[in-house]
């Protein structure tokens, strides 16, 4: 519908910014994802203002208090407390920082590695492509969890190690997709035109090709961010990731598993938080793909 409108308006269009806005507002998934993510981001940034207690402060007198909607719940601990009497809301709030930090920094590392390799392979082809395709294949043959296990066994787990391990392992999808899309863009007329206007190879890669890959890149960024956050949770649950007493959501599930039978909220609350975060990121990615779809541009 929006595309039809843009066709009809002809040469004198009232600016593409309004069109873009209309497309964003019309996309419910994108709006929902963006709202949730923005909320989590605000919580993470304003954690000290929101959290009612210190997330590390233990109080063995007040262990396993249920959340307020439970008949034994109390407003002094809205989400209850964990097995060591730490306020669950405070831990959840601080935990969002860890999840977002992992998501963003892991993807920052893997996006740079993966896109560089992918673009080089796609643009130059030939031997460069063979070598990089081999690297991608090698990477795909290694299970992430196993490698993480080995690394943590060697150097011990910490937030830094988790970020590094995931960042150095999750670049495969970036490389694969960037390689394929670069192959498409490389032979485009405007690349030829840029060359005829005296552009260098570096300029062509960075200023002509990269902007055309941004749509795809953003989609993979969101997908991989969600994947990294889930993997961190999984690693922390296995005891290989973030170490206690840091309030990671995965670790909270792990610590709660022994109380699961009688106090189920200790795992459902961080689990739901993880679910919401990953859902929001995925919705956002889908939305970006729809909004920046190449077929919307001519």
């Amino acid at each position, binding site marked *: 519908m929006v595309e039809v409108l843009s066709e009809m308006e002809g*040469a004198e269009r009232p600016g593409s910014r309004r069109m873009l806005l209309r497309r964003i507002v019309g996309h419910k998934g994108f709006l929902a994802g963006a709202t949730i993510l923005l909320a989590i981001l605000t919580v993470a940034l304003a954690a000290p203002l929101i959290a009612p207690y210190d997330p590390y402060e233990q109080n063995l007198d007040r262990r396993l208090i249920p959340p307020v909607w439970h008949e034994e719940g109390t407003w002094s601990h809205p989400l209850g407390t964990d097995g060591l009497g730490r306020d669950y809301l405070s831990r959840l709030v601080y935990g969002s920082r860890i999840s977002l930090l992992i998501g963003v920094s892991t993807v920052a590392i893997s996006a740079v590695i993966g896109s560089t390799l992918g673009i080089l392979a796609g643009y130059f082809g030939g031997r460069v492509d063979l070598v990089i395709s081999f690297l991608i294949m090698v990477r795909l043959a290694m299970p992430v969890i196993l490698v993480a296990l080995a690394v943590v066994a060697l150097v011990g787990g910490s937030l830094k190690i988790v970020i590094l391990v995931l960042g150095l392992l999750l670049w495969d999808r970036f490389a694969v997709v960037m390689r394929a899309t670069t192959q498409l863009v490389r032979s485009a*007329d405007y690349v030829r035109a*840029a060359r005829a206007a*005296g552009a*260098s190879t570096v300029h062509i890669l960075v200023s002509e090709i990269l*902007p055309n890959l*941004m749509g795809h890149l953003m989609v993979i960024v969101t997908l991989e961010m969600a994947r990294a956050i889930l993997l961190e949770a999984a690693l922390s649950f296995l005891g290989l990731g973030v170490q206690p007493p840091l309030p990671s959501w995965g670790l909270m599930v792990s610590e709660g598993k022994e109380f699961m039978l009688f106090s189920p909220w200790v795992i459902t609350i961080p689990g739901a938080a993880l679910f919401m975060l990953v859902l929001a990121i995925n919705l956002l990615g889908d939305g970006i793909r729809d909004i920046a779809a190449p077929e919307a541009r001519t």
Partner: protein
Amino acid sequence: MSELLLLEGLWVKIPWQGLSLHPVQDVGFTLGQGETLCLVGESGCGKSMTALSIMGLLPKKSIREVRKLILLGEDLSKATEKRMREIRGNLVGMVFQEPMTSLNPCLTIGTQLMETLRRHKNVTRREARERAVELLERVGIPAAGRRLSHYPHQLSGGLRQRVMIAMALMCKPAFIIADEPTTALDVTIQAQILALLKDLQGELGIGLLLITHDLGIVARMADKVVVMYAGQIVETGRTHELFAKPLHPYTEALMTCIPSVDRTPPGSRLGAIPGAVPTLTGPMNKCHFWNRCPKRSISCTQGPVPLVSLGESRSVRCILST
């Protein structure tokens, strides 16, 4: 008229499945300042390859051999890639066939225009912007200042080709190569774009190397014509001479392919040249046009036919006309 471009003995060879293809064989011509030279011929005859070799932009695997390639007194036959980059877009502008795809869809018109200028000349953003607006106005784009922030998809085909022309002119090049600049446009726009090119050329005194397959365009635009067939030049001449008296059977055949109101009675079949361009695996030991020529004789196959000069800019490659 001073000489802008001198090309002599250009060969392009492409290794292919153990064979060697020769899409351009011994092509040469000169282009003067303010002059228009049209390179004519059907698809696959080596027109675009010739243009790309001048720019040093041939596909990776092809090999360029050239006896003389002199642009503004500088020998480019051995120029480094770095020097060629300085020349491309700076001394030589290029306009491509497809205005719909020759602009980067992700960058604004302004960015793309200013980029070329700032790459080659030491100018500030503001100066580049002013030059862009000035040129967009010159190529007939209304509200030029506002257009700078537009993306290519917001412009029609004709406007985009105007932008491409403006882009080719940004650095005040000495000459422009236009590779079928109007083929993708409809007829009215085509006429406008051609008129614009001609105006600009007269005004700025630049040389124009126009590649086309349309003899109508040649008649309107060219000072000199080079007719190519199967990698070779078959005939050259000043436009009026060539149209008045085509010497090569191929040129003649091309001309009968244009339908005209007086010469083509209703209901009659349109002219066409039977057959197709031969595959160019190595130099052929006979006239390239032999298998399609209406005037062929056995003597056409007795060895390669030389290009015979018949005066200042007139030459023909046919044993019947010499």
